[in-house]
């Protein structure tokens, strides 16, 4: 069978293309006959049935013509050329998340996708993938996904199918779409956009709803430039960065690119380091990386920017450009405004000193005027065209959700089409969307889950997961991205474009046709795309497009834009903040985003970067505000806000702005599946359309009840003795210094931490003559984004244990991010440290295992022999890093057969009662070894990357051979700021750390004095050799 063709001899594992064949009716019939009922039943499958489905999903690539076109079916008796069973194949595809289209590589194992990585060929990823992209593969196998088309007339619903819907929709739309409202989330698909425009032309009205929207940003751009645009940040060109609640390293459609560029500017060895200032109300990873962070309530952020502008213009005599929209005299009133903080003049001076090499960026929660002023300042500082540039575009003719509710209530909508999204749950509370929706006589909902909106609809259609879909998308840099399926839809789902096609086209096209046709049209073609045989040149382009995952050269370069000169209004004065007038901010959640990932167990169990909270959100209070209100961590409090109230657990987080209470969106979903149901508190119940992001007038009432918040760190409130010890101990664990210090004394880290006698060995130790695996973790570029945690979870089949077990301290993650706060609780410094098994050469765990279940390999891996382990847990007790994880129960017991499909077959699934831990991705080492042996060479640097290192957006983790003097990891080992964690124990860890450097503004007092020689406080032995130095010599 020649249905598959791989690029011959390329050695490239990427899936390239399939031969084309028309969708045939008999094939579908055959499928239905062969697998009656489809493959929709996830639970309670017999083994036989499971095998059927497994073989089906292998064959799926060749079955059911509408996805992967095929010629004919053959029994799987003979091997398919180009498809080796057991050899993973990678496909480039794209995950859409609102306006962010993320180019990814999906790994498929015998026909089932098991892992998502970034697409290294595309600058928006550079090989890195966000936690959402990595976790998306689990959504594919979610047993609670909606599995059937459901038709509800009146109260009762019944199962239907796609064909019935299509027939119904075609009849209904034949006469035009007047009275039809189409509500869509943000999408970048050109095919979908075309169809929406066609629908509008036929009388439909279009509405856009994205709970976490960038509307303010677009309005600000319109205000400043008169046009919407995609703002391109190039952090690599900025020496001074001012982040105003933007969290540009994480909450930005190009966050991975931003993080990579930012990290490049932090590499002190280049002799240069950028400086980051952050103004924000709640700690974000960007705030955590900042050299100067100013906890500022959201309502003060606008005034802070105005104060900065005033200082720049009046204090530093920055000239405002033509069309600025503000004048120096308008700014005068803002000079010295308290919101700007004490250092605003120094900041302004720093920006002036780096004109053309600086950057200001405002976040999506800021008012349009703030965005506009930031654009003006960037232009005035000469940053436009360098660190910031713009891709202007026309905003599509979408109306807002508020207008839709108005139209629904006015009876102007007879048919409502909801393409994805869950507005019944996530619409602002004042709109009462659920009630309004009921006024449309037909309500069509397309979604991955039959959620609140799905249950309120008259037609619910299961959506295809992106790994099951054909499509196109546009990256934030304007490039054209490919969406291609890896597997036949498990539950016969369809894409938004297909639903639209049914509504506006006769006959409708499949997603595959739509993608091809649109790609053809974008390349200047007219009409439908030619058949594969007909146009060889087009077919080659199409295949290259699918192979790469993007159209080479389609990215656009940003340019500066001319300011429009529209006057920019100054922020309104806010009432006095206090316990009776608190501020409430609504943040997107780093686990469930806006609630769409509530059913993703990996994300639910992923600890929040700052709070370390799993399975819940909480109302975040600053320590001083909590004290004022008498609220302590874990109290249930009632938030009274704009006539609404919500009971929610309180979390006291250092670094939160005073009088500002933050809550993340997306939790408290009663309509979620078994994973997300009941997790957290629904902040949408307080959110109103007039204050989507933050508002004043919050009052907090204590209920006297308590709530168990499951965190992975600080499981319990720390007592005084412990808190004092942490402050003492952390400087030696997460070693830090300033850039200046590092330049003057490259070995400064050796003076930090505990001093010990010379670390010598009592006997001749094993010599590692072959490979000597090691890992470097650069704390200077690690942002703490959790990507490595998710990568490890996905790669190594790490089980999810649930809230109860996490609150008992039994989370299973092999790599964790240790987060410490130092200094003033209301304005602390934050330190992040990823910790996994450090593979000690003198491993304490190995000595104490009574059955020798954990032993050393000759390459220095501390290997865990699962089937020898009896589970005494002695190894874990004796591990000073506490990185070993014990299977307290059978953690895979409750997985359905469908969920098991996501497991990586290269990694053992651990049984109950055995210990596990990081293996340095030993399966990848062995794969590389086999490949090297086949080619008769040794393993080269870069052949092996661990899952965590592969996905790290800032390349903070580097893996390699320490015996190879030219390897990247060896070079990092030589750096002065490399150190071993707990070096004084003389256990010789293979993972070493590179100290974090801060680059404070020398003019600003306080921060520069912090860090540095913190460990010198209480050591006594001056005559001793420095243990730290001795430890390093072993590396």
């Amino acid at each position, binding site marked *: 069978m020649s249905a598959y063709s791989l690029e011959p001899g390329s050695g490239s594992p990427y899936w390239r293309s399939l031969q084309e064949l028309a969708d045939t009716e008999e094939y579908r019939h055959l499928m239905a006959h062969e697998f009656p009922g489809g493959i929709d039943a996830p639970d309670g499958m017999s083994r036989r049935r499971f095998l059927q489905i497994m073989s089906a999903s292998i064959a799926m690539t060749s079955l059911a013509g509408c996805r992967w076109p095929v010629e004919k079916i053959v029994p799987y008796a003979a091997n398919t050329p180009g498809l080796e069973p057991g050899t993973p194949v990678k496909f480039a595809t794209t995950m859409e998340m609102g306006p962010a289209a993320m180019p990814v590589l999906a790994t498929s194992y015998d026909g089932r996708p098991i892992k998502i990585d970034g697409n290294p060929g595309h600058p928006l990823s550079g090989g890195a993938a966000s936690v959402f992209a990595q976790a998306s593969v689990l959504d594919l196998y979610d047993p609670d996904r909606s599995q059937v088309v459901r038709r509800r007339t009146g109260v009762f619903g019944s199962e239907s199918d796609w064909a019935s819907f299509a027939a119904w929709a075609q009849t209904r739309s034949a006469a035009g779409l007047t009275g039809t409202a189409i509500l869509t989330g943000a999408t970048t698909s050109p095919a979908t956009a075309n169809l929406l425009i066609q629908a509008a032309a036929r009388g439909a009205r279009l509405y856009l709803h994205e709970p976490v929207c960038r509307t303010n940003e677009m309005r600000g751009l319109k205000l400043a430039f008169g046009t919407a645009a995609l703002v391109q940040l190039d952090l690599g060109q900025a020496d001074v960065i001012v982040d105003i609640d933007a969290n540009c390293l994480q909450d930005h459609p190009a966050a991975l690119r931003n993080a990579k560029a930012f990290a490049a500017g932090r590499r002190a060895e280049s002799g240069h380091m950028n400086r980051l200032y952050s103004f924000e109300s709640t700690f974000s990873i960007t705030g955590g990386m900042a050299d100067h962070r100013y906890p500022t309530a959201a309502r003060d952020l606008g005034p802070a920017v105005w104060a900065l502008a005033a200082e720049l213009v009046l204090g530093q005599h920055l000239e405002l450009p033509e069309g600025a929209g503000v004048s120096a005299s308008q700014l005068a009133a803002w000079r010295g405004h308290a919101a700007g903080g004490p250092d605003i003049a120094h900041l302004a001076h720093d920006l002036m000193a780096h004109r053309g090499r600086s950057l200001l960026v405002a976040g999506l929660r800021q008012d349009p005027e703030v965005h506009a002023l930031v654009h003006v300042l960037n232009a005035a500082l000469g940053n436009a065209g360098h660190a910031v540039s713009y891709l202007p575009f026309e905003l599509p003719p979408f109306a807002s959700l508020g207008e839709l509710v108005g139209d629904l209530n006015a009876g102007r909508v007879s048919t409502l089409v909801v393409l994805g999204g869950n507005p019944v749950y996530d619409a602002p509370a004042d709109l009462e969307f659920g009630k309004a929706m009921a006024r449309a006589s037909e309500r069509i909902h397309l979604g991955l889950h039959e959620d609140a909106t799905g249950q309120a609809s008259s037609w619910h259609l299961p959506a295809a997961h992106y790994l099951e879909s054909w499509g196109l998308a546009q990256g934030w840099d304007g490039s054209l991205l490919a969406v291609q399926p890896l597997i036949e839809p498990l539950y016969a789902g369809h894409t938004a474009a297909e639903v639209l096609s049914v509504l506006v086209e006769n006959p409708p096209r499949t997603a595959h046709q739509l993608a091809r046709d649109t790609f053809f049209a974008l390349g200047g073609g007219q009409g439908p795309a030619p058949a594969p045989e007909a146009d060889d040149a087009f077919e080659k382009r199409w295949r290259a497009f699918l192979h790469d995952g993007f159209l080479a050269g389609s990215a656009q370069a940003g340019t500066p834009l001319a300011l429009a000169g529209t006057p920019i209004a100054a922020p309104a004065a806010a009432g006095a903040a206090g316990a009776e007038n608190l501020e409430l901010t609504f943040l997107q959640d780093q686990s469930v985003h806006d609630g769409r990932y509530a059913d993703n167990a990996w994300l639910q169990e992923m600890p929040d970067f700052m709070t370390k909270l799993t399975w819940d959100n909480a109302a975040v209070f600053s320590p001083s505000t909590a004290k004022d209100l008498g609220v302590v961590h874990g109290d249930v409090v009632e938030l009274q806000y704009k006539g609404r109230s919500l009971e929610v657990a309180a979390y006291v987080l250092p670094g939160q702005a005073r009088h500002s209470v933050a809550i993340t969106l997306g939790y408290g979903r009663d309509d979620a599946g078994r994973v997300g149901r009941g997790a957290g508190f629904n902040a949408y119940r307080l959110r109103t359309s007039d204050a989507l992001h933050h508002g004043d007038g919050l009052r907090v009432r204590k209920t006297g009840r308590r709530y168990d918040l499951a965190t992975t760190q600080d499981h319990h409130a720390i007592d005084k003795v412990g808190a004092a010890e942490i402050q003492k101990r952390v400087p030696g664990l997460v070693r830090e210094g300033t850039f200046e210090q590092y330049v003057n004394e490259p070995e400064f880290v050796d003076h930090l931490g505990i001093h010990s006698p010379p670390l010598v060995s009592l006997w001749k130790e094993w010599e590692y003559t072959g490979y000597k695996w090691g890992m470097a973790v650069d704390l200077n570029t690690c942002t703490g984004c959790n990507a490595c945690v998710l990568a490890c979870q996905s790669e190594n089949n790490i089980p999810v244990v649930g809230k109860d077990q996490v609150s008992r301290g039994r*989370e299973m993650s092999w790599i964790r991010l240790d987060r410490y706060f130092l200094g003033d609780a209301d304005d602390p410094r934050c330190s992040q440290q990823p910790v996994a098994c450090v593979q000690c050469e003198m491993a304490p765990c190995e000595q104490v295992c009574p059955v020798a279940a954990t032993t050393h390999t000759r390459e220095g891996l501390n290997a865990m022999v699962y089937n020898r382990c009896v589970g005494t*847990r002695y190894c874990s007790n004796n591990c000073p890093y506490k990185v070993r994880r014990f299977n307290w129960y059978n953690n895979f017991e409750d997985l359905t057969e469908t969920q098991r499909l996501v497991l990586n077959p290269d990694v053992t699934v651990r049984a109950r009662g055995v210990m596990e831990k990081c293996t340095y991705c030993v399966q990848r080492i062995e794969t590389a070894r086999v490949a090297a042996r086949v080619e008769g060479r040794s393993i080269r640097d870069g052949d092996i990357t661990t899952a965590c290192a592969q996905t790290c957006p800032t390349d903070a983790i580097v893996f390699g051979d320490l015996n190879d003097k030219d390897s990247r990891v060896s070079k990092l080992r030589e750096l002065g700021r490399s150190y071993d964690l707990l070096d004084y124990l003389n256990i010789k860890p293979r993972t070493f750390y590179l100290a974090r450097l801060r680059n404070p503004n020398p003019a600003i007092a306080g921060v520069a004095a912090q860090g540095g020689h913190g460990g010198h406080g209480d050591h006594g032995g001056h005559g001793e050799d420095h243990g730290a130095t001795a430890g390093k010599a072993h590396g």
Partner: protein
Amino acid sequence: MKNPQVSQAWDNTRDDPTRPVELILGGNDFTSITEKVSDIVLERKTPRAWYLAFFASAGLTGVLFLMIGWLFIRGVGVWGLNNPVGWAWDITNFVFWVGIGHAGTLISAILFLLRQKWRTSINRFAEAMTIFAVVCAGIFPGIHVGRVWVVYWLFPLPNEQAMWPNFRSPLLWDVFAVGTYMTVSLLFWYTGMVPDLATLRDRARGRVRQAIYGFLALGWRNSHRHWHRYEKAYLLLAGLATPLVLSVHSVVSFDFATSQIPGWHTAIFPPYFVAGAVFSGFAMVGTILIPARKWFGLEQIITKHHLENMNKIILATGSMVGFAYATEFFIAWYSGNPNESFAFINRAFGPYAWAYWTMVTCNVVTPQLFWSKKLRTNLGVMWVMYIFVNIGMWFERFVIIVTSLSRDFLPSSWAYFRPTPVDVLTFVGSFGLFFTLVLLFIRFLPMIAMAEVKTVMPIADAHSGERRSVGDYHGDIPAHVRDGGDR
């Protein structure tokens, strides 16, 4: 009564260096001793209290096995353990019970070699208790493992993979140390019991009892040759058992001392653990002995003098333990190791301060009351004190194990341990098992070493003119046999 000047009311705790202390009161002779002890097993009606106590204990034993069953079905997660705290009540209970098992061998072996005659009244009881405590102790390491069905891999058994256990692991040393201790203690106990078993055989009525005791008595005929060999064997076993008294708990302490967790990694542990073990063992012997001597009318054999001697040992070992606590603190400061210092400050002032101060109060403060002769000879006071010591010594192990694990090197991993009901019921159930075994022992075996007690009575003295008139030295003939008929 042959010796009227030594009455039951006589206070043998007086300090009078001019006369030897009477170890047996009440004018008992060999016959009365034999009758008093063997009648509990053979003649006296089992008291209703025994049945009540037995069913209560057996019920708790049932709870123990239910909990173990649940543990086996579900996994170790049914306990409250978490990631830093990989051992908690399981190993605490193990060390607690092993410690209790120390008094028996100490009394039988070390005091025997030191010719402490007063040991004879309590050694049988203490040895029995040792064995039952070690049985209870042995359960915990066996069930605490994750995959209990392969726990036999800890033993160096031949297998198809030619895999040895890891001889560097202190946990493996534990297996050998506790195993050896159990074996030797059992042998020692049994060997010492052979003459008494023969007495029971001779006095038993009913074929079944005669057969069973006869089988257990190994054909003891009270011949001089038997006595000669018996005394040799007993001395040898005492010599063998003596180092074990010191070694078992030393090895158990290696589980902690050889690891590198601050608070565990301490060279003082072996002597400190042994002292603590003797301390807790004597307290547990006393806890049971005080009610037992009363209920079974053994006050003349287990006299206040015996109890006072035990209390002196408790005072001595309790002070050693207190000294060890102080030394730990001193070294933590003196070593200059900040992790070590914190481990101890954290114990005393951290989240487990309540456990620490419970331990100090029960182990160090209250035993000092035994300096007062009035208090150490008051039955009520000493019984309360024994309970205190039992509580304190359990907490000592809990404090060492849990506080050290809960806060080690990296503060990110710190956590607090909370027991689950399964933890609690398993521990309570282990007491059920212990008392069940004790009650069975009281009911079916001679709880006082009759033959040995007789050797320390005044009439056993070769210079006593009365010796012959009373008859047989050991294994004397029951009255009804001697007098030719039923009494």
